[in-house]
């Protein structure tokens, strides 16, 4: 009955989770929220995480009712494929937050004399999705601020069937929220979703599905232009724009997921990642699944949004399968894709 402690902090959420045999014993989390009109930068995010991570660790143990002796393995996000267009001057990508969390994982592993396990962030999402929903072999739509991929499992790999060729759908939504100066609390996507519910007019936006893939940066530029123009003439409201953006990008996601499901003959779809919290996306995916006689699975915000327990869960699977990460090889990386991990814990 191994107990795994997991650390996650690759974007603006920092979480520490504890999992024992498929049971989530603790999953505290904090989010670094920036003012409306701004996004989170690596250095500031890292500083936020460093300030709270040791408290979160304590909270997790307390919530789980455990001590360090009870923990069998320390898992942490080693690999994140978060692509953030940040200039070289600020340091590439979100390495700073990731590294800050990694040093704590290493230190804790040494202090408590436990094995260390580096986990791929995306696989964390998938494994938690599978655990919570019970989906057996779904086509996975992984959508967040940093990632947009359609994934299916085959022969020990999570194969990427389709993905964004530029920015993630969540990134598109978040950056649009900045243009409208929508609040980032609790998250820009959530606030766009609420505003979209009040939208009445569908503004036509580019629809950019490219085969199995999608593209969002053109839509973003377009809607940023449109916003400026149409809002000043009163031709539409911000709510209309939120509604239109969601309808467009979500329809694109449904299309590429359906294409992958058709290709695999899949009867299950699973949505993971922060954008998966969006009820409208879930509705649209549900409609598509019903039309195909397939079943849709989704998790709630505790597990959709980045969290420590998902890393612990993936770590648990890997630990059971015998994976270990020696300290000397525990450096963080943003280079490995989801499909480069050997998934030895599934048939």
């Amino acid at each position, binding site marked *: 009955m191994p107990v795994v402690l997991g650390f996650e902090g690759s974007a603006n959420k920092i979480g520490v989770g504890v999992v024992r045999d498929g049971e989530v014993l603790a999953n505290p989390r904090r989010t670094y929220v920036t003012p409306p009109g701004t996004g989170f*930068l*690596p*250095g*500031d995010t*890292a*500083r936020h995480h*460093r*300030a709270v*991570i*040791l408290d979160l660790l304590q909270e997790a143990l307390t919530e789980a009712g455990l001590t*360090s002796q009870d923990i069998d393995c320390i898992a942490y996000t080693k690999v994140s494929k978060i692509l953030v267009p940040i200039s*070289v*001057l*600020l*340091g*590439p*990508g979100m*390495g*700073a937050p990731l*590294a*800050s969390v*990694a*040093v*704590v994982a*290493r*230190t*804790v*592993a*040494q*202090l*408590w*004399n*436990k*094995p*260390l396990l580096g986990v791929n962030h995306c696989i964390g999402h998938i494994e938690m999705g599978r655990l919570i929903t019970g989906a057996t072999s779904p086509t996975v739509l992984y959508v967040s601020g940093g990632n947009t991929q359609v994934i299916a499992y085959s022969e020990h790999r999570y194969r990427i069937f389709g993905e964004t060729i530029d920015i993630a759908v969540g990134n598109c939504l978040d950056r649009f929220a900045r243009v409208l100066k929508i609040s980032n609390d609790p998250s820009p996507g959530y606030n766009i979703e609420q505003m979209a519910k009040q939208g009445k007019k569908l503004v036509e936006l580019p629809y950019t599905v490219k085969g199995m893939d999608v593209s969002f940066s053109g839509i973003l530029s377009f809607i940023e232009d449109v916003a400026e123009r149409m809002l000043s003439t009163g031709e539409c409201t911000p709510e209309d724009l939120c509604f239109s953006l969601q309808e467009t990008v979500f329809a694109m996601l449904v299309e590429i997921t359906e294409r992958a499901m058709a290709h695999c003959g899949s009867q299950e779809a699973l949505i993971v990642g922060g954008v998966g919290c969006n009820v409208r996306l879930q509705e649209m995916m549900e409609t598509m699944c019903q039309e195909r006689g397939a079943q849709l699975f989704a998790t709630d915000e505790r597990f959709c949004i980045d969290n420590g327990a998902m890393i612990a869960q993936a770590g648990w699977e890997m630990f059971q399968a015998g994976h*270990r990460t*020696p*300290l*000397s*090889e*525990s*450096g*963080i990386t*943003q280079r490995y894709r989801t499909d480069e991990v050997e998934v030895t814990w599934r048939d």
Partner: protein
Amino acid sequence: MQAPQDDAGAGGTGDRAEAQGGSRNPGDSGSAGSSEGKGSLSGPGHLSDPRGLEGRSGCDGQGAHGGPESQSGPAREGAVGEVAVATPQCEQAAHAPGSRGDAGPMARGSRSRLLEFTLIVPFQSPLEADMAHRSLAPDTQRQPGVVQKEFTVNGSTLTIRWTAEDPVLFRISINSFLDRLSLVVRNIQRLGLPASLKQGRGKGPES
């Protein structure tokens, strides 16, 4: 180099670092060179201006035992950072590239300027120094070759030596390292060394 009063602080002393306290985390006492990981490191007290380094230190390049004991607040358990900076333009510092032991890509004849920074961190025990080393060393540069970091553990002391050509990346690397170092120290303090490790039994997880 004693407490620099001008802006071009090479991270200076504990006093100075304390003064830059600002948004420091609780429990961080002044580590050599305050660090705001953001990357736009232009405030005073940051390792801001390499030109300032060379302007000031002239040829006392080697010696920078500028860290008075005041740096060791209760939270640090005596982990004090000292800063030694070698100025590339200076004659003495010309030894520094040589002391790396290789002719390497350093163009001595040209005007290309190699920036160097050495941080010496004494810990309370060899165990802690080693632990910190293993926690901090694995995250290598995303652009290998641009900024070089060399770690050495000698007894209870962890020494890190940076060399780089690009002053901005140099600065970012050092400052973000200091943030992580501070975190590791807090981490060790907060969780405490278990008795079994203190006695030197058990080497910890596989390295």
